[in-house]
């Protein structure tokens, strides 16, 4: 073994969507932990998914179809961090389809997140400011030189880069003036032939070329200049680092309270922020530093609640049901916003991908969990592991062994096969007792190893990453 199995399992859950037993075998046999981190932050080393192969099988207009394609990508990519970063950026820069209901814009935005997620903060904010979905979401198409709309300028500073307390109302006005004329080309109507894409458009005659004072600097700034200044701010380095820490390491307080609630691990944020500053806001070095740090390695036990997306994709990877295009993955993501008569499992769990509730995005961590969402999570997991004909379930059942093996060993193998799940002592003892009960069932009663897998995956402990 070149690397520790439990630690690699932890890394793959956080930097990706979990590893299957076979993947863990291979990774730990062939690579050190640091080599695996390097592979994760260098996704170009691995082939990209063939989008035409996905599109060949999955077609349709509903947003759920496109979310389904994204889930398929998350479950099957050989570049897990690339996909995880697109999800991260969707959390940090949350745009909802429901405002404009213009499908191509929101899908192109996610593609853009995938493309730029591992670049640098200047590229990320510049692409974001050119993105028609974001422009419409925060009304920058209504931001004119003779009548500014401050919505995008405000959120760019408050939620997307600096955080509350690091700018003034005058800075918002200056930023907004700098983004006047940043709009998009009118797309064609939905009828009669469906949606057509749009693209960024700069209207020079609607741009305010006047002098502006922004964060103490003076000039005839445009949006790009504003982003340059933002990217240099220590506050941006800390804010983005805290976002990364919250998403990958440990649940933080909700974003709106960050100006009053100190970070859970201020030293970790400072270390990440210093790398961010030293590298000009490059994401790869910050992520490399984070994944290789002790604070990340020590954050394995109950530090982070899985988001509904992470739960669903993690389970799908383990069951293997969607290892190749198979009908039905879109059903995890149906919502009533999208003409469905029922809310799907992800909606009931509280996460409608491509439809975040507000510009703040989803409240994460323990706020994912209430009695209703927890019930749905457990129902979902239990149902997904029920069918032993699914290739991943079949493999796990074969590897767990016989119900008549030592119950403690059975439970340990289940935990390992489910991706190196950590459980409390109480949960472990309960599972051992359950395994013993399964083994002692009378002939004629239906019981199998998959029941133990179901029970293990149905524990509250499994809800943590």
């Amino acid at each position, binding site marked *: 073994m070149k690397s520790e199995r439990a630690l690699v399992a932890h890394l793959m859950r956080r930097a990706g969507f979990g590893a299957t037993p076979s993947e863990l075998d291979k990774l730990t046999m062939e690579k050190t932990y640091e080599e695996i981190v390097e592979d994760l932050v260098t996704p170009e080393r691995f082939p990209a998914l063939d989008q035409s192969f996905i599109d060949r099988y999955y077609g*349709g207009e509903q947003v759920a179809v496109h979310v389904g394609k994204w889930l398929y990508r998350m479950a099957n990519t050989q570049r897990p961090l690339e996909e995880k970063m697109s999800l991260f950026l969707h959390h940090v820069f949350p745009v909802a389809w429901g405002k404009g209901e213009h499908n191509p814009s929101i899908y192109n935005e996610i593609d853009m997140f995938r493309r730029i997620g591992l670049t640098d903060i200047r590229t990320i904010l510049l692409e974001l400011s050119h993105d028609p979905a974001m422009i419409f979401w925060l009304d920058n198409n209504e931001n004119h030189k003779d009548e500014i709309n401050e919505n995008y300028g405000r959120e760019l500073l408050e939620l997307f880069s600096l955080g509350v307390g690091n700018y003034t109302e005058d800075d918002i006005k200056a930023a907004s003036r700098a983004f006047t004329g940043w709009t998009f080309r009118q797309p*064609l*109507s939905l*009828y*009669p*032939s*469906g949606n057509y894409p749009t693209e960024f458009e700069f209207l020079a005659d609607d741009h305010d070329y006047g002098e502006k004072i922004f964060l103490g600097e003076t000039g005839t700034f445009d949006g790009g200049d504003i982003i340059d200044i933002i990217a240099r701010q220590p506050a941006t380095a800390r804010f983005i680092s805290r976002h990364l820490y919250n998403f990958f390491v440990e649940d933080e307080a909700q974003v709106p309270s960050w100006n009053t609630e100190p970070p859970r691990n201020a030293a970790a944020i400072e270390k990440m922020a210093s790398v961010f500053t030293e590298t000009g806001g490059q994401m790869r070095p910050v992520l490399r530093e984070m994944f290789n740090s002790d604070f990340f390695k020590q954050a394995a036990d109950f530090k982070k609640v899985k988001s509904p997306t992470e739960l669903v994709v993690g389970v799908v990877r383990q069951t293997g049901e969607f290892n190749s295009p198979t009908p039905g993955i879109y059903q995890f993501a149906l919502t009533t916003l999208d003409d469905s008569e029922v809310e799907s499992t992800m909606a009931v769990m509280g996460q409608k991908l491509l439809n975040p509730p507000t510009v703040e995005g989803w409240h994460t961590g323990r706020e994912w969990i209430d009695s209703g969402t927890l019930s749905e999570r457990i129902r979902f997991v239990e149902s997904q592991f029920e069918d032993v004909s699914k290739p991943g379930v079949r493999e796990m059942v074969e590897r767990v062994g016989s119900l008549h093996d030592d119950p403690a060993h059975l439970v340990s193998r289940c935990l390992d096969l489910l991706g190196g799940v950590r459980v409390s002592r109480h949960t472990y003892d309960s599972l051992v007792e359950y395994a013993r009960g399964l083994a002692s069932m009378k002939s004629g009663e239906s019981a199998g190893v998959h029941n133990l897998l179901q029970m293990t995956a149905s524990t509250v402990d499994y809800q943590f990453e």
Partner: protein
Amino acid sequence: MSRPHGLLRAGYPYLRTLGMRRVIGYPTDVGWTDDGNALILMRSEGAASVRIWPIEDADLFTDDLKGFGSYGAGDGQMVWPVQLITDGEGHIYISDEATHRITRFDPDGQFVSKFGARGDSDGEFDGPTGISFDPDGNLVVVDSKNHRIQRYTVDGEYLGGFGSHGSEPGQLDLPWGVHVDELGDIYVADWGNNRFQAFSPEGELKIAVGKLGDGEAEFDRPTGVAVDAHGDIYVSDWGNNRVQMFNSEGHYLWSFRGDASLSRVARNYMLTNAMSNRLREMGRIEQEKYLRRPRSVRIDSDFRLFIPDYESYRVQIYQKDVVVLDRTQFAAPLRNPTLEVT
């Protein structure tokens, strides 16, 4: 009917467009009936059926729409339908790559029979896609994930097959559409290899045309293939949003990129939608005429070319305009090019 000695290619004008959003959903293939209707096979996640629509176009309201089939795995239902063909008696056959079966419907769209089971042995399928009748009335089926071609009676009796996975000439990679011409030759859209190939009835390779690209005779995921009674070959070039046309020797002739105009139903719909009309005026309306991701191409005995315009919820139709030439009107093939152009 024998192939002509030559053709005076007068043109290939655009004829008309059928359908619009909400009337036709994601058309993936098209067939026709003897009484002048198009049978438009529609497929998206969670929805699958056949829309019946007059080829001469119609102005049908949603309450009057005709069709058959529904989404599901039951008899007469479909999950991932791929191609639709009709026989001389008007029976309709539809392949389904999710349920691994071919279903036969009567001319009224009622379920008649089905065959097929998942597997990789003779007589089994893994994702049947293209279907076509051979001159004997048997079914030629593309078994896409097994990368092979199989032949069956219409009742599902296995008659033989050929093909293997790979990129060498004659091999296949996730093939999609198929057409068998009147001579029995089998034309296959070789999706993964970005080419089309033609095989003799016995499976001997005759021609292979194409590679990845967007130039002439290059493809980005070819989906469907059709051959007309003159021997001309049409290939829907999905990723390049076009249909390419070749002569019977595989020589590139031209491309169809789309010329859509509003169907009758679309025209009437737009008359009552002021905002949509304004947005079309503000937008780049030229985009609206082009094909988007065609998944098939078909040509009928009247030389009408049908292109299911998958992402634009419609079918575009062209009309071939040629004059058949005899030996006195069409010179013998030249071995060399010449600058002595007359």
